[in-house]
């Protein structure tokens, strides 16, 4: 029994309870430091767990209820290096967010803010560790509820209320679909443990019920992840949450949904659906590519930085989903490393945007045009982060991108890596363009192509308060960025990730270990060599990002004729897309329903 496993969840929960009862006695800064210390402790636990679990997955059965005769009676956490890696990312981002909030908030922060943050932390780590389907649902809901409340923290703004309501309703329905899927699986198998579900399901071929249950579970998890067409709530919510909270949302919450998809597929459904892997692959990669491209396009059309970064999150969720959807160990390894590296970069970007909001009062690139000239460090963080988003070699994100490239190449999907590189390049370009406008004063300060927030309706929390300064506003961004980009230089990282992913996808062996206490198979050795084609694509992505950013800034220098032709071709589509993303909650739920029906239908067709 490894005591660190339950502690990673129990410590923040106990800390939350302590702060809820005693937090109002102590000053807000003390509460904040205590919460940050707890988050740091969780990070350390999870990093230790990465190393401890690298020799074999750690199973922790609550109350000592071990499986008897291959039947799971109790509930367990299973920690493997990939899950522990994501949990460590959660801890690191939460630490950064809590450190930033020491200097971020103007007012005396009520203790319930830190209570919510710690519950959020515990729920995310619990979700990453759970190997029981219903427990996953409970942690998923706990995480969502804490997240709704944190989104609505600045409850005095109209847009905040709108964002929080959309978030809560759409995710509520997504979670409900997840639950119906779980109920169907339980009805069929009588099991809730992922490995045991896999054992029972793999005895028979797929039928309607199995496919519908799988589709509903995937839809529920993808709603949280923000995949198209379940993504509409995401940009509304992330644009209005306080910047420290956004570090968590953007850095890891969305990607946890994808981790759930990978886990449920490999542990429970890969046996029964394995004969039809091509169908599942087509659906997942299809959603992934659509999400990556639509998210990138919408990011490029935003002028408000937080909303832009929200669409960057959506776009990258698509990239990760396509990588997971390759359904190979190498694709999963690439996706997981990518989630960690990119999560650190996105966290750094949101942290820097928080600093900008506090110093300048605006984060809309058209309004804040040229007003960031006195903040060279923030500008540099955003610029380097933008290159990280574009997966420029040799940064940390590039290493994971190269793995995905390799995995797609091995399957013969040669078209996929360039498409994903295009999406990441466009997201990088959008942020670079904003950096050029705000920090260098380049380009005009108006652009009818961009979606701008009407003046007086700004979503930033900074505008009414006096400017704030402080090392803690931007210090965490530097640390996160350095960690995210420096991952590339950890020796043998890709090889280790592939080895652990190979173990993760070996369903029969995982089931033997979980249910029969078999000893772990040694991690198969792997040797990853970054090919020249990956470097070429990474370089092309960098050039494209810079080029597109320039086009975004100096669109007016393009000859009038070409501009008119482009407008005539794409103007209508762009306008329609913008209108689509300015909907109300009923429309978003309609899209959720349509998407769920489409995914179920496609899966049913392709796995016949």
């Amino acid at each position, binding site marked *: 029994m490894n005591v660190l496993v339950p502690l990673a969840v129990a410590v923040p929960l106990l800390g939350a309870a302590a702060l809820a009862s005693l937090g109002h006695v102590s000053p807000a800064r003390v509460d904040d430091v205590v919460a940050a210390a707890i988050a740091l402790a969780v990070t350390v636990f999870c990093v230790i767990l990465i190393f401890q679990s690298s020799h074999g997955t750690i199973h922790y059965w609550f109350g000592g209820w071990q499986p008897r005769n291959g039947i799971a009676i109790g509930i367990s956490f299973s920690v493997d290096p990939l899950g522990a890696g994501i949990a460590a990312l959660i801890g690191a981002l939460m630490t950064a967010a809590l450190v930033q909030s020491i200097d971020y908030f103007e007012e005396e922060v009520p203790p319930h803010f830190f209570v919510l943050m710690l519950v959020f932390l515990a729920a995310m780590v619990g979700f990453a560790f759970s190997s029981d389907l219903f427990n996953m649902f409970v942690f998923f809901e706990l995480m969502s509820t804490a997240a*709704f409340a944190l989104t609505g923290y600045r409850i005095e703004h109209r847009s905040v209320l709108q964002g929080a309501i959309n978030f809560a*309703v759409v995710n509520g329905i997504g979670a409900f679909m997840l639950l119906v899927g779980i109920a169907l699986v339980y009805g069929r198998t009588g099991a809730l443990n992922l490995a045991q579900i896999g054992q029972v399901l793999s005895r028979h071929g797929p039928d309607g019920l199995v496919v519908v249950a799988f589709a509903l579970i995937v839809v529920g998890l993808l709603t949280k992840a923000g995949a198209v067409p379940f993504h509409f709530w995401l940009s509304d919510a992330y644009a209005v949450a306080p910047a420290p909270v956004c570090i968590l949302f953007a850095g890891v919450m969305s990607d946890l949904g994808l981790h759930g998809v990978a886990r449920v597929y490999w542990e429970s459904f890969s046996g029964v659906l394995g004969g039809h892997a091509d169908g599942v692959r087509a659906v997942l990669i299809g959603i992934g590519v659509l999400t990556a491209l639509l998210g990138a396009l919408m990011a490029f059309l935003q002028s408000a930085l937080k909303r832009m970064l929200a669409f960057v999150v959506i776009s990258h969720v698509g990239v990760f989903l396509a990588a997971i959807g390759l359904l190979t160990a190498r694709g999963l390894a690439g996706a997981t490393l990518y989630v960690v590296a990119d999560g650190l970069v996105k966290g750094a970007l949101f942290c820097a945007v928080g600093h900008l909001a506090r110093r300048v009062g605006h984060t809309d690139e058209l309004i804040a045009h040229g007003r960031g000239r006195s903040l060279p460090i923030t500008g540099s963080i955003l610029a380097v982060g933008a290159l990280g988003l574009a997966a420029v070699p040799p940064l940390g994100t590039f290493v994971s991108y190269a793995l995905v490239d390799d995995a797609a190449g091995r399957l013969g999907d040669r078209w996929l890596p360039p498409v994903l590189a295009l999406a990441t390049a466009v997201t990088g370009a959008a942020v670079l363009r904003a950096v050029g406008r705000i920090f260098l004063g380049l380009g005009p300060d108006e652009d009818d192509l961009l979606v701008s927030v009407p003046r007086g309706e700004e979503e930033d929390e900074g505008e009414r308060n006096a400017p704030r300064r402080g090392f803690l506003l931007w210090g965490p961004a530097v640390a996160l960025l350095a960690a995210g980009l420096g991952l590339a230089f950890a020796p043998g990282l890709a090889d280790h990730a592939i080895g652990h992913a190979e173990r993760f996808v070996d369903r029969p062996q995982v089931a033997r270990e979980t249910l029969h206490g078999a000893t772990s198979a040694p991690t198969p050795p792997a040797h990853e060599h970054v090919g020249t084609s990956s470097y070429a694509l990474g370089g092309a992505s960098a050039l494209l990002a810079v080029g597109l950013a320039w086009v975004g800034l100096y669109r007016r220098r393009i000859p009038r004729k070409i501009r008119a032709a482009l407008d005539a071709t794409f103007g209508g589509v762009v*306008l329609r897309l913008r209108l689509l993303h300015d909907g109300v909650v009923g429309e978003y739920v309609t899209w959720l329903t349509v998407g769920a029906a489409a995914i179920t239908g496609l899966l049913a067709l392709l796995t016949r």
Partner: protein
Amino acid sequence: MSFLPYALAAWLFFVGLYGVVTSRHLVHLVVCLGVMQSSSYVLLLAIGYRTGKKAPIFTSGVPVKLGAVDPVVQALTLTDVVVSVTATALILALVVEIWKRSGKLDPDSLRKKET
């Protein structure tokens, strides 16, 4: 085993969904969400039900007789109720806040009047 509970669960699901999609009033929308939630309670209980079997109440000292309905789904339902009540309470709190700020409860009034 009757087909009826499953039909009822499906009916509650689609009626609730229709209500959420077409709602013109935020409180009404939350109630419709509640209707959808109750469909999952019916579904869970239906899955664990065994015709003619007793409630799964076991006490120490009394010999265990097998043949009760599945207690696991009942535990799941209870957890589900707790979870969904929390979410509902939170959304209602947001709705009250919207009412205080704008005096309107039409979801359309939340549109970002941008384009």
